[in-house]
């Protein structure tokens, strides 16, 4: 078996910004002293005059992005998820969301896969925060191909968008000619009849591996990549509930308020089915290598496999 190509989606973000910058003069990138980590440094190298480093001041950065947007620029404000969604939550809500300004927030280093920096930097709450803001689009791409397409789609969408990227290199699973990114449209990556796994971000590739293992045990698992958490593809959830009657959500985020909660909202109101939420269980993370943390917090393929098997 050939080696699986792995790329961190934050890297995809930086590369996609450069492509976007070449095509559109109104793209401007903001950062808060993390250009090397968020990978906006790649954009800075290509377009130094359109890269604005705001220093370590995320609240102001979001406000500056809002001001730029009022003049027709399309700002991509970038920082770690903890600071973009956490520290600057109220600025995102009041200066970007309320006036519905065309600001894109590129949040990298989301979830526990931040790794060694530990709990203070591992944001497992950003999706919950962002999806409560009226009109905010929330996207959590699964791999390099999807992340780049998501950046493009975010630019094309007029209005605020929150893009969630990871620090850890993850397998490229969408590298095929048929791949197409549609905002708010879930992608069924594997057909199945016994259970549906709805995942986003790095748990998508882990879920695919888990489904393969489940198949060996005679369990047919459908795997859906829910790259857009808001607006959620409700049809896909309703269809899955009708088809398999058992839904598992898998996300690198708190089980409170994220993808799992969004899916449960739909299931409870429109398509009653059994649901198991896999995610970070209302706890802080800790320091350690990302791969070990994903295992310890139950988000790797083996953990998903075991939990789904017990659930079915």
């Amino acid at each position, binding site marked *: 078996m050939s080696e699986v190509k792995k790329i961190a989606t934050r890297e995809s973000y930086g590369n996609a910004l450069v492509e976007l910058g070449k095509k559109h003069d109104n793209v401007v990138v903001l950062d808060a002293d993390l250009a090397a980590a968020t990978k906006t440094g790649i954009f800075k190298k290509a377009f130094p005059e359109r890269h604005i480093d705001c220093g370590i001041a995320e609240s102001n950065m979001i406000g500056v992005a809002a001001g730029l947007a009022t003049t027709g620029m399309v700002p991509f404000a970038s920082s770690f998820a903890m600071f973009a969604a956490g520290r600057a939550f109220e600025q995102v809500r*009041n*200066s970007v969301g309320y006036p519905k300004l065309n600001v894109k927030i590129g949040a990298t280093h989301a979830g526990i896969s931040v790794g060694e920096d530990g709990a203070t930097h591992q944001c497992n709450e950003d999706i919950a925060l962002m999806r409560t803001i009226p009109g905010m689009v929330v996207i959590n791409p699964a791999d390099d191909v999807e992340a780049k397409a998501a950046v493009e789609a975010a630019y094309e969408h007029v209005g605020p968008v929150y893009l969630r990227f990871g620090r850890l290199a993850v397998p490229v699973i969408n590298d095929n000619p048929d791949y197409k990114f549609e905002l708010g449209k879930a992608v069924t990556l594997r057909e199945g009849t016994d259970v549906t796994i709805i995942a986003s971000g790095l748990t998508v590739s882990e879920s695919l591996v888990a489904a393969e293992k489940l198949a060996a045990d005679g369990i047919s698992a459908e795997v859906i990549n829910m790259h857009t958490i808001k607006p959620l593809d409700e049809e896909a959830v309703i269809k899955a509930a009708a088809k398999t009657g058992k839904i598992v959500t898998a996300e690198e985020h708190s089980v409170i308020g994220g993808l799992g909660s969004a899916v449960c909202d739909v299931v409870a109101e429109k398509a009653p089915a059994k649901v198991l939420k896999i995610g970070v269980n209302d706890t802080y993370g800790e320091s350690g290598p990302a791969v070990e943390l994903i295992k310890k917090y139950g988000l790797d393929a083996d953990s998903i496999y075991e939990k789904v098997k017990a659930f079915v």
Partner: protein
Amino acid sequence: MNKLELMKMANEVRKGAITAVHSAKSGHPGGSLSAADIYTYLYFEEMNVDPKDPKKADRDRFVLSKGHTAPGYYATLANKGFFPVEDLTTLRKVGSYLQGHPDMKHIPGVDMSSGSLGQGISAAVGMAISAKLNDASYRVYTLLGDGEIQEGQVWEAAMLAGHRKLDNLVVIVDNNNLQIDGTVEEVNSPYPIDKKFEAFNFHVINIDGHDFDAIDAAFKEAREIKGQPTAIIAKTVKGKGVSFMENQVSWHGSAPNDEQYAVAMADLEKVGEALCQK
């Protein structure tokens, strides 16, 4: 406008603000009145804006960072012709476009939604940066309260404005010395305000915020400054123009009843009549 015309217009703005707050039975008269002369100067003398084309690309921008003093701002926009003066009485009412705090989506002439203190100045900095990036000639103005500058975000924004030498940006501080919990120095002193902005590479001008000669000179001076943003620290009187509201912290955020409204309007009418004698 000449000085006398500006004074008359500022008096109309004050009447509009008080009428709006009285009608809404809530709102912020004190800071609306302290800033009335500055609002008036900006919209009737300083800024390049067109009420018939509120979104024209090369217009000067204004961000009311101290968004709660919207009644004074709205009264200014209405008198300028952005919307009917009669609509001021719909302030804060269900279904009205005149929200309690500025809403750029629905109010003609409003360049940025604001109200959560400390955030407006950042948006103004973003607008000024955009002008620099695009070689646009418009200027950006933002009005802050002296209590508001206790917000840390204000200094994040000031640092970036100074660092990027935004000479197309003018920050005005309405220094009426009062905030909800008392005088600003009692609560958490921001003084010396001028030295703080100077330290962030601003050109600073201290003025009497009710003296149109001083206001005029300050904004003209700001236009000449290159390589630095300007901060105008305007010493003002909270509640200016209404006898019982002047320097009274209780009028920060409460509405006059019918009796008080009559007194307030009589005060302002008297000022107006005196100005007409000049």
